[in-house]
């Protein structure tokens, strides 16, 4: 059978890879996908741990995770779409509109 630590290592790898996508890629859609990968890592952790202890709590947690993901994805996708519509770009470098412009106030 599979030791718990192996499942957890796989989950950790998924999480780190997802985080890598979030941190290293610059497109909003990629960042969202990276978030999904991270969530999957978390889900695997929960399932593995839940099965290890032999109760349904881990699965309940993952069901909640699915719900939250669904809600998050819907809203995030619309926001990405609106950003795309407005700025004609989905790269995060171009979406720094909220940044306070250093040069403006020094004049």
């Amino acid at each position, binding site marked *: *059978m599979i030791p718990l630590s192996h499942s957890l290592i796989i989950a950790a790898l998924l999480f780190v890879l997802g985080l890598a996508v979030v941190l290293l890629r610059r497109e909003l859609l990629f960042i969202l996908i990276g978030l999904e990968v991270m969530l999957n890592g978390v889900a695997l952790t929960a399932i593995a741990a839940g099965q290890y202890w032999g109760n*349904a709590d881990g699965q309940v947690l993952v069901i909640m995770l699915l719900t939250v993901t*669904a809600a998050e994805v819907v809203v995030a996708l619309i926001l990405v779409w609106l950003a795309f519509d407005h700025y004609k770009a989905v790269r995060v470098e171009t979406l720094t509109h909220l940044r306070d412009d250093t040069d403006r106030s020094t004049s």
Partner: protein
Amino acid sequence: MYEFIFYLSSAIAVVAAGAILVVRHPVHAALYLIVSLLALALLFFLLGAPLLAALQVMLYAGAIMVLFLFMMMVMNLRTERNLPLLLPGNWGGISLLALLLWLVLLLLLSRSSLDEAGSITVIEPKEVGSALFGPYLVVVEAAAILLLAALVAALYLSRKGKR
């Protein structure tokens, strides 16, 4: 056989997740994510969570990722310029990730109690259901409210022109 399928599908899941890091087109990234999800669903099944395996495919791959693809098709994105990942600006992130991975592996490998291989107990959908509508009822309600809120937010945000 069981171990072989487990490690094979976990390898697929991890490799597909890694592929997301390097592919150029968002649609390809989404496809790799779907592959990763399906492999993960198999892992869930093998770990004794058949309900979650089915839900993972149905909800995640079947609904959430379809939404992703749908939006990508609506936006009709062009292929992005593929920046090299090893930019100077990325060194902070890469070192942080390495540190994180090191810490986690350190944690996992230092606990010998986690290495015991117990037998897999299959937890039936029925048990999950009674846990959901028993002790976790409040969480279900909260999730319902969250979904409602997301619905309202989506409706509001997608009302173009009227805002």
